[in-house]
């Protein structure tokens, strides 16, 4: 089973412009379901295309189980058609002049599989991806979800050890996304393939991936498991990018931030304090570290609520957002006491690196800085 090693991967299109992908090093473990996550234009698709061989490297090396696929220093380049890696395009890229069956069969023909075997394999793929009855249709006659299944079937038919998916769910509507997400999880279990997928959607990443590589502006920000990414963000960018609604960022010097930090036992000097919206609790009675705030608005989001607050502070009012599952019993304009859970707090330095995180006092085990270098 394949393990992909990326070392110092760099892609620059012109010597003047900043590199699209800058010095990326990480290892995709065998059999993992890894996500490359980042805002659009951060270079994540480029990495996927470099693994596939559709983009060449400007620096660095890609190796799969010890076989070098592309290396600038060693002068090696294995073209995409010789890599045996599967890639499902964001647009699906089905061949419009071929039927569904012909699309699926194409790769098998190239592998020179005998006709009878080919037929059986197509039938098997059609059944696995639940697209029976569509075999003789052309791509233009299929819905988005069906097209994606065909694209998957076409790629999986040749049983690649590595499957790359470019924004696999982005073209589907909400209901279909749920189904396809379950489908992808099932396929991953069934085929045991190493899957790398690219998305800008943190929800997609969090729900599907075993590992997440967060990227920004061509650089890798953090590579860790999904829960670590959320609980121990490596830096301000990761903390801000992951989580919906986004994390509250307060100046560490503010009265509010200092009060929260002191209560959580966080005394490291820092530049900013990050506070997850779901870690905020509101009450009418004063408690340790609590500050007063005014309710600005209450927005129901269907099953949960967003409560906007402002706290008076020396340097001007500080705005906070709370996210809660229990129906708020406040009125707009009401004054409340705000306190924060320690484990929802992270301190960041002026360069954006995370310095420390709060530790939950209700549980005994420590997971403050787990896995962080």
């Amino acid at each position, binding site marked *: 089973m394949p393990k992909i090693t990326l070392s110092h991967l760099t892609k620059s299109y012109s010597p003047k412009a900043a590199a699209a992908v800058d010095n990326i090093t990480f290892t995709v473990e065998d059999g993992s379901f890894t996500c490359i996550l980042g805002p659009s234009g951060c270079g994540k698709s480029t990495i996927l295309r470099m693994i596939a061989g559709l983009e060449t490297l400007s620096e660095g090396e890609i190796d799969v189980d010890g076989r070098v696929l592309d290396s600038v220093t060693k002068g090696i380049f294995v073209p995409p058609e010789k890599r045996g890696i599967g*890639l499902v395009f964001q647009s699906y890229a089905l061949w419009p002049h071929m039927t569904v069956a012909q699309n699926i069969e194409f790769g098998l023909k190239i592998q020179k599989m005998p006709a009878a075997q080919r037929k059986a394999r197509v039938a098997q793929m059609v059944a696995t991806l639940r697209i029976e009855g569509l075999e003789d249709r052309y791509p233009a006659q299929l819905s988005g979800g069906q097209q994606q299944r065909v694209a998957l079937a076409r790629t999986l038919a040749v049983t690649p050890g590595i499957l790359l998916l470019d924004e696999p769910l982005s073209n589907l509507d909400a209901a279909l996304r749920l189904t396809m997400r379950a489908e992808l999880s099932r396929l991953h279990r069934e085929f045991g393939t190493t899957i790398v997928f690219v998305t800008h959607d943190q929800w997609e990443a969090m729900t599907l991936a075993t*590992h997440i590589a967060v990227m920004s502006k061509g650089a890798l920000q953090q590579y860790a498991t999904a829960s670590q990414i959320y609980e121990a963000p490596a830096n301000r960018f990761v903390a801000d990018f992951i989580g919906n609604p986004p994390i509250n960022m307060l100046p560490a010097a503010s009265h509010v931030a200092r009060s929260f930090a002191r209560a959580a036992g966080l005394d490291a000097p820092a530049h900013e304090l990050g506070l997850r919206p779901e870690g905020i609790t509101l009450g009418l009675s004063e408690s340790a570290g609590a500050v007063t705030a005014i309710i600005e608005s209450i927005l129901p989001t269907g099953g949960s609520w967003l409560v906007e607050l402002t706290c008076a502070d020396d340097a001007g009012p500080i705005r906070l957002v709370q996210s809660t599952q229990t129906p708020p019993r406040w009125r707009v304009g009401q004054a409340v006491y705000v306190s924060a859970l320690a484990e929802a707090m992270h301190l960041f330095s002026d360069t954006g690196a995370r310095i420390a995180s709060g530790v939950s006092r209700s549980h005994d085990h420590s997971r403050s800085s787990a896995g962080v270098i």
Partner: protein
Amino acid sequence: MSTLATNPTRPEPAPFGARLRHRLTIARKEPTALAGLCMLVLFGWLIAVPLVSIFQDMFTIQTGDAARIGGEVGDWTSYYLSRAFASRMSGIIFWKPLVNTLTVALVSMSLALVIGSVLSWLLVRSDLMGRGWLATALIIPFMLPAWTFALAWTTLFKNATIGGQPGWVEAMGYQLPDWVSYGIFPTIVIMTLNYIPFVILLVGNALRRLDSQLEDAGRMLGAGKGTLALQIVFPMMRPAVMSAALLMFADAVGEFSVPYVLGLPVQFETLATSLYRAIGTQQSGMAAVFTGVILLIGVVTLSLDTWMMREARRFAIIGGKGSMGRRQSLGVLQWPAFAFAFGLFCVAVIVPLGALALSTVMQLPGRFTLSNFTLDYWIGRDLGTVALRNGILLSDEFWAAAWNSVRIVGTASICAGLLGLMTGYIVTRSPVRWLAVALRQITFFPYLVPGIAFAAAFLSLFAVPHGPIPALYGTPLILLLALVADQMPFASRAGISAMTQLGRDVEESARIMGASWWKRMMAIIVPIQKGALVTAMIMPFISGIKGVSLFIILAVPATDVLTTFSIRLVDYNYTQAANAVVLMIALIALVGTLVINRITGTGLAQGLES
């Protein structure tokens, strides 16, 4: 397992040698750039070298001139230039034809522009009755070879100055002066009629896109009709009008067939006919000078056009998509306007085609008695003529010429179509940018060169053996190569636009599946681009079938095609037969054009705009 990569160590950049080796490895596995290089060499040989060669001819002593000029063949000389521009003969040799050429081009361009613009407005912006079918009917002359009209003119208006059968008007007893029958007047009339559709297509299209809300906005601010027309409509239309004017002008400068048919009897010469005469009398040095001048005019005019189109694009953004067209009611002018449009249709389509068609079934011109009508010129046997004793459809010469036309033009079109798609592929996919740019420009270049100049350039280069390439003159191959090169602008443009619309991912997904470059071409690209490929083949086919310029210079009797065959019939005064052949060519061109429009669903105008 978890890593955080904030600042991983950055290794030294790979050394230059390793980097080069890496790039070479990639290039070896990716034949697009290599294919592009091969194409560039091919087009360099087919397009650039002939043109360079003709410039060389202009400055070196040509075979047969050595004694007169004093020097060895191949020596540098300015004899040809001074003979053309500054000798005792230059008035007759050069300046008169130049003045004629420019007069014809400018006058027919202006007339076509005025008449065409009025018609465009009537068709697009007014409630002219019958505008639906008129819009198509008035375009028909564009689909026919220009000299169809020249032959129709001689059929109707030929006088007794030259021998052979008289025209209909003379046959009916009216004396016609020479200036009506031949020379500059009929040339201008015919070129004007031939260019009007051009204006209707380009200006009409621009008018259609002009958002009438822009006019409304002006009106809301209190602008009168005159202000509106001068300050809003005209500036917006200017690029389209200028573009139509320049394209017509460039085409008119290179036009050969019309002045050839109508000018010869009265020694009316243009640059194109002078060039033809120079080639016919083995004066390759002078031919080079004429070619150079025609080429220069063509390049200057069309560079102006390219620049204009770029300007036009600046405007296009403002237009937007939500344009609204509103039609102006013509009121009492309805009938006069209709009479004008319909009259033009009669003059430009019905009369010439009708005259040609009737002439082929009449023994004596202009005599409308039943006994005078015959189908002999089509299907008769043992006619009382010296040559061509059978009707056209029964004569071997016709079918041989037709077969030659189809064979040579057909092969050339298939080659041009495939090369066009290939050009499109490389232009859109080449990893090497300069290669894409160079290929796009070199394939477009023949568009700047009038056919007759191009043919002369080809003759100059391929008439004698060069290195491993034997002399090609007299073989179908030279026609084939010239046709391919001449048609590359259309073919490559069709290919480029088709490939631009096809995403890379379709091919990349085949690559991922393990398909080699060749397999991807054959199983993915070509099948998907089938429609574009057919267009890229039919368009050169039609223009090749009706084209005269290339063939008149490069064809020999062994490679006779329909156009040269009919020109020869004209020269021998076999009027009916010549007209019959021309009608057959017109039929092929017309049907072919309609077929393309059917297949692609795009109007002709798109093909004209760059």
